[in-house]
C-alpha cells in the first residue's frame, strides 16, 4: 500500500535537491551505494585484490635477490612435488588438523554438561573455559613450552607422580606436532563450546520430554535427538576448525625454535612458507607454496561438504 505512495512523496521531499543534480531516485540510491563501499574497495583493491593476483603471478616467476623476475612456468609447482620439506610440512599440517579435530567431541561433551537445565555458576564456568581463547597465542606458546619441559615441566612431574617415565614432548618428530596440536585444542576449546552451546539451546525441550515418555534413556536421547539436531552446528565448527588448523603458524613458530633438534621435521605449511619467503627470500617459490595451501584448503573443505550428506541433518 505504502509502496505506491512513498516514492511520490519522497520525490516531493527531494524536489529542491534533485533540481541541482538531475538524477533519478534510483540513480541517487546507486550513487550513495557506491560512495558507501568506496573506502572499503579502495583499500581492498590495493591490499587484497591486487595481492591475490600478484601471488598467482609470482608463483610462475623466478625471483632474484635483486629486482629481476623471469617467467619459469610451472617450475615451482613441479619442484613442490619432489620437495621433501614440503611433503613433511603437508603431513605435519594434516596430523595437526586431525588431532585438532578432537576439539569437536570435547566441546560437545562440555557444552552438553553446561546445558544441564538449571545449572548454577554457568557464567563462571564459561569464563574459565573461554579464558584461553582471548589469550595471546605467542604467550600461550611460551607458557606451554615450560609446561612441556622434560626436566622441570609440571606435566612430566605429574606423570612421574603417576609412575610414568618422562616424555620429551617437543623434541621428537610427530610427538611434537601432537603436543602442539593439544595446545591448539586448549586454546580453541572455549570458542567451540560457546558455538555448540548456542546450537544446543535451540533444541526444543519438548522433544526430549516426548522421547522420555516413550522410555528413551539419557544416552539414547543424546545420540538419537540432540546430536542429529545440532549436526549443522557441529559441521560448521569442524569445517572452521580444519581451516584454522591447516593455517597454523603461531604456536609452532613459538614452541619449535630453530635450536630444536627436530626443527626441520616439525614445520607446517605456513611455517615453511615463512621460512622460504621471509628467511630465504625466495618469493616465487613461497608464492607457489601458499597457492598450494589455498588448493589444499579448498579440497579438504570440499571433501567435508561432500561427506556432510552422510551425517548432517538439516531440519
Amino acid at each position, binding site marked *: 500500500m505504502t509502496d505506491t505512495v512513498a516514492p511520490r512523496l519522497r520525490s516531493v*521531499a527531494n524536489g529542491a*535537491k534533485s533540481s541541482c543534480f538531475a538524477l533519478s531516485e534510483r540513480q541517487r540510491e546507486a550513487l550513495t551505494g557506491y560512495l558507501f563501499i568506496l573506502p572499503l574497495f579502495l583499500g581492498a583493491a590495493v*591490499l587484497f585484490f591486487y595481492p591475490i593476483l600478484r601471488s598467482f603471478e609470482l608463483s610462475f616467476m623466478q625471483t632474484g635477490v635483486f629486482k629481476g623476475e623471469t617467467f619459469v612456468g610451472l617450475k615451482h609447482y613441479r619442484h613442490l612435488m619432489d620437495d621433501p620439506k614440503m611433503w613433511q610440512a603437508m603431513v605435519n599440517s594434516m596430523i595437526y588438523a586431525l588431532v585438532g579435530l578432537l576439539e569437536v567431541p570435547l566441546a560437545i561433551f562440555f557444552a552438553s554438561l553446561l546445558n544441564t537445565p*538449571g545449572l548454577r555458576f554457568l557464567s563462571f*564456568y564459561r569464563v574459565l573455559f573461554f579464558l584461553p581463547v*582471548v589469550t*595471546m597465542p605467542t604467550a600461550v606458546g611460551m607458557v606451554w613450552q615450560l*609446561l612441556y619441559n622434560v626436566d622441570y615441566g609440571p606435566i612430566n612431574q605429574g606423570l612421574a607422580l603417576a609412575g610414568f617415565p618422562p616424555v620429551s614432548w617437543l623434541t621428537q618428530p610427530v610427538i611434537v606436532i601432537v603436543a602442539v596440536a593439544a595446545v591448539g585444542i586448549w586454546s580453541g576449546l572455549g570458542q567451540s563450546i560457546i558455538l555448540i552451546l548456542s546450537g544446543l539451546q535451540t533444541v526444543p525441550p519438548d522433544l526430549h520430554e516426548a522421547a522420555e515418555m516413550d522410555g528413551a534413556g539419557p544416552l539414547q536421547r543424546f545420540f538419537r535427538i540432540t546430536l542429529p539436531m545440532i549436526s549443522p552446528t557441529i559441521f560448521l565448527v569442524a569445517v572452521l576448525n580444519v581451516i584454522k588448523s591447516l593455517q597454523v603458524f603461531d604456536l609452532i613458530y613459538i614452541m619449535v625454535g630453530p635450536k630444536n633438534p627436530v626443527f626441520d621435521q616439525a614445520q607446517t605449511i605456513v611455517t615453511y612458507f615463512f621460512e622460504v619467503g621471509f628467511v630465504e627470500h625466495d618469493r616465487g617459490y613461497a608464492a607457489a607454496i601458499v597457492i598450494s595451501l*589455498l588448493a589444499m584448503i579448498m579440497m579438504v573443505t570440499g571433501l567435508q561438504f561432500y561427506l556432510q550428506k552422510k551425517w548432517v541433518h538439516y531440519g
Partner: protein
Amino acid sequence: MARVRSSESVRAHLAVHAVLIISALAMVFPFFWQVMTTFKTQTEALQVPPQLLPATFGFDAYRQVLQRIPFVDMFNNSVLSVVTRTVAQLIFCSMAGYAFARLRFPFRGTLFVMLLAIMMVPREIYLIPQTEIMKSVGLLDTVTAMIAPGLFSAFGTFLMRQFFLTLPESLAEAARLDGANRFQVFYLIMLPLAKPGLIALAIFTALWTWNELLWPLVIISTSSNLNLSAGISTLSGEYVTDYPMLMAGSLMAELPMIVLFLVLQKRFIEGIATTGMK
C-alpha cells in the same frame, strides 16, 4: 514431578559440577603456573622436581623484561594498532555492509562475491605482495605498514551486512518520508540500532589485532616498532632460557586483553559466538 525427582537431580547436578570444576581447573592451571613462575628465581624455575610456589615472591623477572625489550614502545604500538584498526573497520565495514544490505546499485552481487572471495582465501596469500607494496612506498619497518592491512576487512563487512539485514526496513522508509537523506538514515537510525553488531566487530578486531604475530614479524625489523605479540617472541635467550622472565613478559603482554575480557565478558562471548571462528 519436579519435587519427586529433586534429590536425584541434585545428585546429577553435583556430578556435573564435579566434572566441570576439575576440567575448569585444568584449563586455568597453565595460567597459575605462569604467574607462579614469574615470582621465582631462575634457580627455582630450573629445580627438579619443580615446586608449585616460589620461596619468596620476587619481581625481578618483570624488571628484566623492561630492560631486555622496549616493552613500553611495543605496548604503545599494540594499543595504536588496536585503536586505529577498530575505528577504521567500524566506519568502513558498517558503511559498506549497510550498502550491501539495504541500497540497490548495479553489480552489487558481483562486488559482494568479490568480497567473499577475500574471506575464503588464506591470509598468507597476501603477505608477500603486501610486503612488496610497503617496500615500494617506502614503509618497510614502520608501524603504519604494520597497521595498514587491518584497516579494511571483508569479514567485518560481511558481518555488518548480515546484521543490517536483520533490522526492519520500515524504519528507514519512515525516516525517508520525514525528509531524511540516505546518509542521515544510515547514521542516525540504522547505526544506533546496529550497536550489538558493531560491538561484536570491535571486539573481534581488537582481539585479533592484539594477538597478531605473522604480519608484524614479516614487515618489522626494528624491535621498538614491533607489536607486543611479536615483541615478546624476541625474549627467548640465545644460550639460557630464563623462564621467570619469559613468563613475566608473556603475562604482561596477554594481561590487557584478559582484563578487558573479564570486564566485558558477556559482550566478548556473545561477540565471538556471532563472529564464529574466523
